[in-house]
């Protein structure tokens, strides 16, 4: 068997790729790196900019209610940004440190976390958003009569809830299609390691 296996090894090691231009390859990798860095900077900037714009454009100094509302929105946005950064755009995926088993476990955990964000945390985000907007509207709509105010509050709440629920369902459906089979397959790989 050993002789045969040595033949197989020779056959295997005879396979070589063509040498391609390493400089063009590195140039390509550098471009990708710059592009990814730019995307990361954009993501890191867009949230503080939006929060800054909201504080700049809203009369938060004149009303404690509007100030609370903006603080809630700012908290919710930073929280979601933090979750996104944790789950998706982290540069280091530890593939250089982990063994196959640990890497698979870490990867499954990471994918499950993405699922969890869509299924649980986005509803909490929706709740905070609705709460913040209703506080602001409560103050801004003060001059109107009660029926109009209740009507606007209800419409606003239902519209945001409906839209976010639709978005979340869409995301979960997408994950069911893409992430679920990957998670199952990776779990299968882990189970088969003991075979």
């Amino acid at each position, binding site marked *: 068997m050993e002789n045969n296996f040595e033949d197989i090894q020779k056959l295997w090691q005879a*396979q*070589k790729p063509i040498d391609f231009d390493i400089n063009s390859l590195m140039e390509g990798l550098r471009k990708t790196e710059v592009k990814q860095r730019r995307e990361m900077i954009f993501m890191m900037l867009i949230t503080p900019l939006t929060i800054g714009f909201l504080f700049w454009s809203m009369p938060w100094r004149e009303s404690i209610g509007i100030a609370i509302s903006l603080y809630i929105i700012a908290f919710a946005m930073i929280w979601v940004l933090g979750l996104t950064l944790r789950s998706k755009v982290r540069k280091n995926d530890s593939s250089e*440190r982990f063994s196959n088993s640990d890497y698979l476990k870490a990867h499954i955990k990471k994918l499950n976390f993405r699922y969890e964000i869509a299924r649980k945390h986005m509803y909490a985000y929706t709740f905070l958003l609705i709460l913040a907007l209703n506080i602001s509207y409560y103050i801004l709509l003060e001059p109107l009569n009660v029926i109009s105010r209740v009507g606007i509050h209800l419409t606003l709440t239902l519209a945001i809830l409906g839209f976010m629920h639709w978005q979340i369902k869409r995301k979960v459906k997408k994950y069911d299609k893409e992430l679920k089979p990957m998670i199952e397959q990776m779990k299968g790989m882990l189970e088969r390691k003991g075979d």
Partner: protein
Amino acid sequence: MKHRKDLEFENLYKTHKDKIFRLCLGFVKDRELAHDLFQEILIKIWRHLDSFRSESELSTWIYRIAYNTAITFSAKEKKKPEQAELPNGMDLAEPENNSLEQELQIKKLYEAISSLAETDRVIATLLLENTPYKTIAEITGITENYVAVKVNRIKASLTQLLNPYGK
């Protein structure tokens, strides 16, 4: 003038490209997909190069990245992999100067390897590169003794599947 990272990557690429290439073909049959996997591994090596601290052998470090990328790549094969902006015409080569019989043997070998379970595939390809058991254990995360057990099974299975030159 080239940066230190460029020189390190160039050196590493020259030394290890053949092994990485063979690993890709061992994990995905389709040459186009093998190209994507090869690319994804190079991106990760490039990305992590600054974090290499010589705590392990460079080859073990590269294998870890390569195999971890390969196993998750095979799980997400249908999803579009991470793409770098690489120049056109960077195709992986067809094996050079092979006889028809050798070509057939190689084809059979790839088929035999891809019929194995993922961990066995990792072990098989490492074994074919004469990798020590200790390194295989480090990469796969199973004990050295268990690697030895699996190696015997894999050797027998590959030899039986291929039966090279009718021996």
